[in-house]
């Protein structure tokens, strides 16, 4: 009896991992081409951009917030980074007389812009007290607007080779986007589980009053939560720009929702204070495997969207029941 309870406990806790494994096994049996190393790396590469966003989103949602602006921030970071990373052979140069810059310049520019946009989000939420939904909804259209103004609506392309390496190169046989994704997973994991900032983020999301009376500077925590989210968007922007060797202002539209979906499928609770980094990774993988699988099976892309929506809703229903049992 006790043994059975334990099993049940493991299943409720890691249920989504089982779902992922079942999906992988099923796909491997139906389509052998799914199993190839190349396809697996492909799946990982495909989820790296919104996977990185989902990492930052986990921190945000653990703090009982939400960030709708990440897709737009990503686009703004991407066009700015790309404009600083153009090759001298480009036919339409953003900065006409600029020499080729070392790759570190566009990278730092992307991260910085991301961090600034995130800090604005965090500042608005922490210091004016407006809901995160509203603050980031505003920033979503503001950043998108800036991205269009910056580029006059045109894509920025023909980038330096080292930019291409970030998106399409390999390190020890592993695609660079996957390497960067892995790095971000480790950083976020340490940030959330091993730093004071992480512990306090859980406290702010779990019980903001408790955090306050314990002397936690809640405003500072919120400011940094959204700043980190913004930086993740910056990293994702670099990866995304590298993969396409160009950037355009309409980029990553709707990615905020994919990031929220990944986080949510992974069991991070919208009510705050509960969430894991591995959950965000598994959630992103579930979406990626599902998309890849359905494409291999030749399922129409419109139908794919419907399936995705159903999966998100079902995942949350299951998750709520899990937490209801605990309470």
């Amino acid at each position, binding site marked *: 009896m006790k043994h059975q309870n334990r099993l049940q406990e493991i299943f409720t806790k890691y249920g989504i991992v089982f779902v992922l494994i079942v999906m992988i096994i099923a796909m491997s049996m139906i389509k052998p081409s799914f199993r190839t190393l190349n396809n697996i790396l492909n799946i990982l590469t495909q989820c790296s951009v919104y996977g990185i966003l989902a990492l930052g989103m986990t921190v945000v949602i653990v703090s009982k917030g939400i960030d709708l602006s990440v897709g737009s921030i990503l686009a703004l970071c991407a066009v700015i980074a790309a404009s600083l990373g153009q090759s001298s052979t480009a036919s339409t140069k953003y900065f006409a007389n600029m020499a080729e810059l070392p790759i570190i310049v566009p990278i730092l520019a992307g991260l910085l812009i991301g961090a600034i946009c995130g800090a604005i989000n965090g500042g608005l939420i922490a210091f004016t007290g407006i809901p995160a939904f509203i603050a980031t909804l505003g920033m979503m259209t503001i950043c998108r607007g800036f991205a269009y103004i910056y580029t006059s609506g045109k894509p920025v392309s023909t980038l330096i080779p080292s930019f291409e390496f970030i998106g399409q190169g390999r390190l020890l046989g592993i695609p660079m986007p996957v390497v960067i994704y892995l790095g971000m997973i480790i950083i976020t994991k*340490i940030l959330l589980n*091993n*730093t*004071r900032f*992480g*512990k*306090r983020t*859980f*406290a702010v999301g*779990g*019980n903001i*009053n*408790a*955090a*306050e*009376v*314990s*002397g*936690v*500077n809640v405003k500072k925590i919120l400011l940094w939560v959204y700043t980190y989210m913004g930086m993740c968007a910056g990293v994702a922007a670099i990866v995304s720009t590298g993969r396409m060797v160009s950037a355009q202002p309409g980029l990553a539209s709707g990615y905020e929702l994919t990031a929220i979906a990944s986080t949510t499928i992974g069991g991070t609770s919208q009510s705050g*204070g*509960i969430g894991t980094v591995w959950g965000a990774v598994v959630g992103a993988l579930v979406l990626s495997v599902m998309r890849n699988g359905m494409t291999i099976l030749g399922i129409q892309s419109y139908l794919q969207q419907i399936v995705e929506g159903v999966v998100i809703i079902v995942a949350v229903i299951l998750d709520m029941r899990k937490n209801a049992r*605990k*309470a």
Partner: protein
Amino acid sequence: MEKEKDLLQMVNIEKNFPGVKALKGVNLNVGYGEVHALVGENGAGKSTLMKCLIGLYPVSSGDIYFAGKKIEHYSTAQALTMGISMIHQELSPVLYRPIMENLWLGREPLNRFGLVDHQEMYNKSLRVLQEIELDEDPRTLMVNLTVAKMQMVEIAKAISYDAKLIIMDEPSSALTEHEEQQLFKIIRKLKKQGTSIIYISHRLAEIFEIADKVTVFRDGKNVGTEAIDQLTMDQIITMMIGRTMDEMYPKIPCTIGETILEVKNLSHKKYFHNISFEVRKGEIFGIAGLVGAGRTEVIETIFGMRPKISGEIWINGKLAEINSPMDGIANKMGFLTEDRRATGIFAVLGVDSNIAIPNYDQFHSKIGLVDDRAVTKGCNEFVEKIQIKTPSLKQAIQNLSGGNQQKVLMARWLMTGPDILFLDEPTRGIDVGAKAEIYKLITMLASEGKCIVMVSSELPEILGMSDRIMVMHEGKMTGLLENSSDLTQDTIMRYATGTQDDF
């Protein structure tokens, strides 16, 4: 300097909230190693004063001296480092995090890489937990602890700050007798070490057991500070309510009629088991017990807010099928919830909307729209009948005093024309004068033949109002008592702590 004599001096403290003067020139002195009790009705200003002291609210005027120094404009974090620590009445744990993270929240120990040192945190937690003899693994999630143990963790946290002054706001309200004795042991130990304690409690008996001095609050003022051995319990009560008990609870004798509500062996999956009682016409039926005993859950289940797993509810001799509050209302029940702000008022809506919300079906015009004139007329009737003090019906309810808000909610339920009225902590957080009016209203309703089921944590209220009293302990009914003049708070407490059990 003379100021040095006491650890804490609060001089002429005033605190104004928009529209309310919560503190009207309060003084409080607490000596070194002194256990100083604060007593007073809810809303008398004790908690507000303490929130000012720990830096959660800025004071509107007045001075605070701590350890000989004047302190002002400080945050809770600074108060903690100065040595002022508070155990809050509304427990404030971060539920889905381990005990140890709750203990060290805001000052997590770091290792040499600047990361949180989990091992060190664990060891330090173990030591603090041992000090208060709480046998729990520091890695246990808070959500898995009982309310009493969460409270002990809060105390451990205060101790771990090396506080010079610990404020305990109703620390024993959720504790069993044994746990309470353990708490007192800790308090005596702290006192011996020179720590001062401000002890807020409604239970006068324990104040006589543990406190050195007592300060009584009423309506935002302190009405007196005395050494505890200079006072009797009756004197304290009279100071608290500003009148004697009989005036406070104006019981109108009324004839109790036939049984209206009968509950048979009602059980909930988690909160309570095998509850049986009946309530008759014109009767006020009190339900007493400690926090977490399952009192609220019982009446919520009867009303249809929670699912029952077994048991029957009979109304007027007929078996009633109640699965939702809608069913409850259809069975002529009304339910005044415990947390007025969370589940009662619609803060920004007017008094009229707040009264009429469950009653719009009564106010259809012929073409199916709401007949505003009829609503106004209907609301006015109740505003007059139960004397709600409001400038107009359109006034947003959030601008009314707590007592008047409560009356508006009473009006809401009375408009539905209920036979059975559930009142969950009907006088929580309202001042003494308004309390007396609510009591008058409740008695009036009973005399009109409604049956009233009242859950209350305030024993004087239970004893002053009820005809019969059910006492619960950890989800079980332990006593069903006829209220008579020789029934005392102590007797009820014995049932509430499970020391005595008739079933």
